[in-house]
């Protein structure tokens, strides 16, 4: 049942992605609307899937749940931004990330890499970290779009993509806001992670790769945000920095995944 729903969700998101990509090259808004409709339906089914995954009684926080939650939150943010700002073009950039993270739940072996529920509140750590990652993913996408639009403006290529991409200052603001949104979540995620490590392993930090990467990422985003406020690291520089920062987020993810059994192995 869940598998069928998950496949349906993936199918709808995939349609959304394909249409959003074609929309990049076409003038008409119709494609984008259809893509949005497909994504909305997919999101509704995804919500059901997520609820089943979370409340079905399977103990512990699995990667399936975590990645599914990440994907769901990302789509939620996407829908909010699109419905409020009518920036349809965002779909071509954000949807693939959500899709990849959701499809990886289908590829990863089911239930093996479990974060053991030794500490009851480990889900708090995972949820907060995932929300942080959502913020940085949006910042990353805004950065990529910023650089594309900047390049098109500089090279005077007034093509369809140029018309589709939002104004630079909008992208810069989106970049900043999503970073400001993601950073507190990442901070709290790391703190709760450290506390759960203290409870289960007796040490706040055990210096395994994903912890190191998480700290490096946190310091990096801290510096980027500070730079923005104090010395004007905005626009192009901020775009580049958020792209690099998101690589750090991905490496942390990868670190956790590769470790397989997560915090139970130290």
């Amino acid at each position, binding site marked *: 049942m869940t598998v069928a729903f998950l496949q349906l969700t993936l199918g709808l998101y995939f349609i959304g992605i394909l249409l959003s990509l074609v929309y990049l090259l076409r*003038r008409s808004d119709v494609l984008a609307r259809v893509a949005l409709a497909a994504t909305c339906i997919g999101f509704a089914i995804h919500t059901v899937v997520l609820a089943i995954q979370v409340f079905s009684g399977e103990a512990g926080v699995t990667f399936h749940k975590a990645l599914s939650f990440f994907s769901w939150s990302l789509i939620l943010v996407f829908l909010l931004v699109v419905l409020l700002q009518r920036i349809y073009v965002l779909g071509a950039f954000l949807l693939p990330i959500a899709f990849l993270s959701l499809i990886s739940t289908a590829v990863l072996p089911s239930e093996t890499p479990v974060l053991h529920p030794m500490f009851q509140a480990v889900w708090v750590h995972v949820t907060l970290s995932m929300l942080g990652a959502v913020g940085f993913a949006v910042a990353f996408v805004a950065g990529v779009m910023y650089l594309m*639009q900047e390049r098109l*403006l*500089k090279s*005077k290529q*007034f*093509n369809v993509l*140029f018309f589709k*991409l*939002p*104004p*630079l*200052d*909008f992208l810069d603001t989106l970049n900043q806001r999503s970073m400001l949104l993601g950073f507190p979540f990442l901070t709290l995620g790391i703190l709760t992670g450290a506390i759960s490590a203290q409870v289960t392993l007796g040490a706040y930090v055990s210096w395994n790769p994903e912890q190191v990467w998480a700290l490096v990422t946190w310091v990096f985003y801290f510096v980027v945000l500070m730079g923005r406020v104090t*010395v*004007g*690291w*905005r*626009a*192009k*520089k901020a775009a580049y920095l958020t792209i690099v920062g998101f690589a750090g987020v991905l490496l942390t993810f990868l670190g956790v995944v590769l470790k397989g059994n997560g915090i139970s192995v130290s």
Partner: protein
Amino acid sequence: MNIILVGMSHKTAPIELRELLAVPDSRMGEALNRLMAHEGIREGMLLQTCNRVEVYAVADQVEQGFSAIQEFFVDTHLSVSAEQLMPRLYCHAEDRAITHLFRVASSLDSLVVGEPQILRQVKDSFQEALTHNATGVILNKLIKKAISVAKRVRTETRIAENAVSVSYAAVELAKKVFSDLSARTVMLVGAGEMAKLAAQHLVNHGVHEVLLTTRDPVRAADMAARFNGVSIPFEDFRANMHRADIVLCSTGASHYLIAPEDVERAVRARWNQPIFLIDVSVPRNIDPDVRQVDNAFLFDIDDLESHIEQNREERRLEATHAESIVKDEVEVILKWLQSLKATPTIIALRKRADALKQAELQKALSRLGPLTPEQQEAVEGLASGIVNKLLHGPLVALKSAAQSSNGFVYIEAARRFYDLGRSLPGQESVNDHDVRAGTDVAMDEIASTSTEDPEQERIPRRASGL
């Protein structure tokens, strides 16, 4: 009744010839009277713009009408000879003339496809013709239809969507850097016409503040008043550049006024917020190396031109969609014209009367019960007699009207009195004002149709160059 058109446009004649045929507004009445004086011309309208001079007319005979209008053109200017003019003139009749009018009004035949001025010019010409009683039922209908077709084309296609003027292109590009212009400041360096026009567009889009600088203090005060702006001494404008989000440069200087270092300093002072520079001066006033400065976006006149060229291409694509709209609408108006012919109306009237007679007879006969053949014949004879006598007058009038020049007025009236074929698809809107095709009605309609283009609204009509 034939709808005909004779004229010349930018496609067939050079400006030197076109301007000779242009009639000044003050002498329009005289020109229209001269046109209507030609034999066989029933209705007429003179449409003239910078790009075309055309006469639309309703004539008794097509060929006779063509030569009458050609004669009218030759008489318009002393220095124009028939030999010089004839090869430049195009002559169309009926559906081709209607199609041409619809295409012209929809700006499909314009030099810049999709430009909005033409519709206003069509309306003006129509008004002029109405004022001088030159048009009648057919042209009134046709031109109002042309105006509504033009509006349909505007709303259903993207033909007029993107900027095709340099000054407006600057606004369009600025909007790709700044989403909300109302929080932005624009700095105007110099007092060049194009930059002023672009600044006007920006102000129309709600720019927050205008800074001005020019070497001439009188002009500076003048411009400060026009844009409600703040004047800055010319020597200080570089130091103030960081205050501006958009810098518009158009001076007569023969050297670069703004160097990459100036822009770098401004961007630094702006904490890397993008700055948008437009240089419409020739020779250029902003060093092209400014392009290399991060977060600074420099556009010169060529860049704006290429942006416009792209938009023009876009318009050409949209034009094919517009052409099909025009084709549909021509069909509709042709149907209406068809309905004005006498024979079908006479047949329809007879059919209608016959049907009514039969229906009433059936009712009466069933009520009377069984009748002898003689009685039945008498009743039927009574019905036929009344119907035929009643119809005799209208039918004779219609037949004779068909031969006369304004017979369609009778025909249209008959169709309305007897409710004949009013349900032809798309015809309802066409029929509304025919019978009372008075000038006042048509005028009202023109007055109520406002289709100003935001791109053009503040530009004087003559200055747009269209």
